[in-house]
């Protein structure tokens, strides 16, 4: 593909980004003013310090914006502003809920590295091609290897989970975030590579199309090993995401009848394995707690783990967090209590897992529902790129599907858990929750999208 280095304007993106930057600055200013008012001090001196983080955010967004203009890319001017908006809201809430260091940590550990990777991918969009051709095996195996290493040698955090790997002087790395992207890349490559062989050599049997089993073995092996490592780490949120990615990408990648056949066999096998496990191996306590809390967070019944009372009621134990979230969202009402005027710090983990509840309390259902709408627009814009790409670019299209499914599952699982629509699972909300590695991975995914986007022709005038 020829390089086109023709500077173009992206007027819509400029406009939207300006709005996003103003909103970010406004959010930080309001939070700071509210906190100072509560302490009955003059808010003016604190404001200058408060505008630094949104300034960093604004500069980085501006940099990416200029980069795209310099690259001569005219298409897709909505994704970057939406990501910017979500980041602005997320950082504002972290600023509200946590000490300032948390915001800076989020910026230095997640945002700045993420933006740097995005910039690299946007300047060298051919890297996507390189990944497909040369690096995919390395990336997949590195992701899996790091994950398995974490399962055995990872650092144990204060909650007792073994989620991060510490290598020498480097900061600890949450490898369960890396494996998601690695899996997306691996599956996109694998389905593209073997897809035709699988479809071509499949045999028909009445309604079913039975593919040759051997083509599935590497893929299944990869997912199984990753899942096993995650189960050892008790990171069931990641297991859920991996499973969803696997199913969704198989569905997107293969002919429907083949998918259904595989899915039916897979479902049967999973049930069998599940049943065997349920009888031979106990269901992890975390899952029992989450299910009990999901069914009735207010229940005064004693919490049972493996049928034995655990010493607390469901309401005092696992239900507590969900109760807090629901009271928070009701306290917020339609328009929220206003930034700094609610009690979101009552919710345990309000800054990471439960950031959506904090947003619902202080900014109201209006903003909460708007954020869901923005997520939806983001997902649809990414899938739109996948649809517009020529059928030959199967890897890129599957990559985009995988990325959007990743965002989608994160939103579904985390928002659903917060508002008691689903059992609670600890994952992060893309771009909103505190969590450096998750943000880095999510931003890299956006970088991949914006790299692939450059292959689309600008709409003819």
């Amino acid at each position, binding site marked *: 593909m020829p390089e086109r280095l023709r500077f173009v304007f992206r007027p819509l993106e400029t406009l939207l980004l300006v709005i996003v930057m103003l909103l970010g600055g406004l959010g930080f200013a309001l939070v700071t003013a*509210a906190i100072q*008012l*509560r302490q009955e001090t003059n808010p003016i001196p604190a404001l200058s310090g408060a505008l630094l983080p949104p300034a960093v955010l604004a500069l980085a967004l501006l940099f990416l914006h200029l980069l795209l203009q310099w690259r001569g890319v005219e298409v897709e001017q909505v994704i970057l502003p939406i990501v910017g908006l979500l980041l602005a809201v997320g950082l504002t809430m972290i600023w509200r809920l946590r000490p300032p260091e948390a915001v800076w940590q989020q910026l230095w550990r997640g945002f700045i590295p993420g933006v740097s990777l995005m910039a690299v991918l946007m300047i060298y969009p051919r890297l996507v091609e390189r990944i497909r051709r040369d690096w995919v095996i390395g990336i997949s195996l590195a992701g899996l290897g790091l994950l398995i290493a974490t399962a055995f040698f990872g650092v144990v955090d204060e909650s007792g989970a073994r989620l991060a790997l510490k290598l020498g002087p480097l900061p600890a790395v949450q490898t369960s975030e890396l494996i998601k992207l690695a899996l997306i890349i691996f599956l996109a490559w694998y389905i593209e590579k073997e897809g035709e062989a699988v479809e071509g050599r499949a045999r028909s049997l009445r309604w079913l199309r039975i593919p040759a089993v051997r083509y599935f073995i590497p893929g299944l092996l990869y997912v199984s090993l990753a899942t096993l490592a995650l189960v050892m780490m008790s990171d069931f949120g990641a297991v859920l995401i991996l499973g969803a990615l696997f199913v*969704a990408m198989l*569905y*997107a*990648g293969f*002919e*429907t009848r083949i998918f259904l056949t595989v899915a039916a066999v897979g479902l049967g096998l999973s049930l069998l394995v599940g049943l065997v496990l349920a009888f031979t191996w106990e269901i992890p306590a975390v899952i029992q707690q989450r299910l009990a809390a999901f069914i*009735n967070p*207010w*229940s*005064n019944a004693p919490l049972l783990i493996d049928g034995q009372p655990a010493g607390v009621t469901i*309401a*005092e134990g696992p239900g*507590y967090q969900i*109760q*807090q979230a*629901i*009271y*928070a*969202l*009701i*306290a917020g*009402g*339609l328009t929220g209590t*206003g930034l700094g*005027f609610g*009690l979101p710090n*009552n919710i345990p983990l309000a800054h990471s897992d439960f950031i959506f509840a904090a947003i*619902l309390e202080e900014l109201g*259902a209006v903003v*909460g*529902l708007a954020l*869901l*709408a923005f*997520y*939806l627009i983001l*997902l*649809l814009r990414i*899938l739109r790129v*996948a*649809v517009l790409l020529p*059928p030959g670019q*199967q890897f890129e*299209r599957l990559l985009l*599907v995988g990325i*959007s*499914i990743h965002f*989608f599952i994160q*939103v*579904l699982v985390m*928002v*659903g858990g917060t*508002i*008691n*629509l689903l059992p609670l699972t600890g994952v992060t909300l893309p771009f909103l929750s505190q969590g450096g590695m998750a943000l880095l991975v999510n931003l890299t995914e956006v970088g991949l999208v914006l790299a692939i986007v450059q292959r689309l022709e600008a709409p003819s005038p």
Partner: protein
Amino acid sequence: MSLTQRIWHIVHVMLVVVALLSGRIVYWQLVRDQELQPVVLDPVAAAAQYRALGGDEAIDLMPLVTLEALPQPVIQRTRARLAEVRRGVIYDRNGRRLAYDYETENGGRVRFYSEPSLAHVIGYVSGLRTGVVGIEHSFNETLLGLNRFDAQLNQMVYQPVLGNDLYLTIDSRTQRAAARALGDRAGAVVVLDARTGAVLAMASQPAFDPNRVLDESYTRSLFANCDAAADCLNPFFHRAVQGAYVPGSTWKTVTLIAALDTGQASPETVFDVGPPLRDEQGSYYVYRIGGSEVVDRNHPDRVLDLTRAYLVSANAVFGRLGGEMDPAVFVDYAARLGFSRGETLPLEISTGAAQLANDPQAIYENDFLRAITAIGQGELLTSPLNMALVVAAVLNEGDIPRPHLLQAVRHPSGDLLQAEPSGNWISNTMRPETARQVRQIMIAMVRDSGMFSNMLPGLTIGGKTGTAETVEGRPPHAWFIGFVENEERTVVIAVVVEHGGQGGIVAAPIFAEVADAAMNHLGEPVQEIVPAPVAVE
């Protein structure tokens, strides 16, 4: 099927899921909003909320509600809300503080009640544990200031909210006299300003200390002997306004009003109660009606006029007045004087309802029941406040002023937000002429008995004693209702002592003691009660 089509399927799934998520948010906010309101300041609603959430521990609505049983998040949010609010002070009519918050050594705030005998009137509140009775309950929002626009604005910008202050019509000196006069006898005293209906004092025994009632062991000790004793007395029961007592002869005032006002009799009408009968207790008269007898042992006279009949409390005369009265007139006059079926009194705190008979229709059909109802027995039940208002009607030429406890609601800045209620509760209950006649007869009753001649010199006093038969084998309720008057004011006092004995012997001295305080010492300062130095809670 191409990849594009399959992507469209994924898009559909995404749309459905986002709709579900949004729907769940809307569900919580619209459907479950009321039930899960995070901040609860209304204890009754809190109890209901707790039950709605499936709370299975019994909440004892009387006498207090413990919000501690609610889910933790509600408690936290309620605490946070309360921490921003300074509950208003309750003053008496002279500006003495009756209920106020004070800071404990550990920085917390505790409500203190400086006149414990007002526990039934004022109620009690303390953070998460709160009573569901009294002024504290009925003026909860006012005291918290939350019904004020400027307070809501303050709350929005996290400035402390100052509650409104309440001024009551209570006079501490009279209140203390009423409580002391009653002592530890079960019963009640009500003191009203006859012209305005303002409550000057209201005592009820047995009582409790509102400063200790939130301590569970203290509350339990109040009911300590209740397991065994059949006649367990509930100290939380407000006898002055909720008590349901047989009124006895004090009710003859109502019968007298009805008879005079309808022209059935005049003060001079002479009655012959027939030949006396005799048994081991002495001679007595009877009025025979409906196959039964109204027994009258109260006087030696066979022939007497209506005034004399009221003075000596002649059951035979008043039984006959009731028996011969048109039942509709009888019921009408009772209703005019505030004894409507099922109707409570218009006070700021919750009151009980009087009853004429278990089955109101029986008044029309059962002549004997009507006759003994006319002398204050039968199935009549009434509260002391109700009887006090009958006297107030007599003193106001037939109008009953609206009884009230509230003198003013004031903004923390001092501005008047709500003035003392005025006007009548019921107007024209009788002709002014009738009222004047009854007033004279009540004065004559006191003068004739010579009860207060040396206790209350220089005052115009009228009244009626009552000795109400209750259950077989127990002493009767001792009653006295009446008024005291000088140039400055007229005060109505109603006294009842449960199973106390003779009204003239037991209740009348209480009346005299309270009347002395209300007439000669109103507004005088009392010895102040201050919080104990030990920090509560």
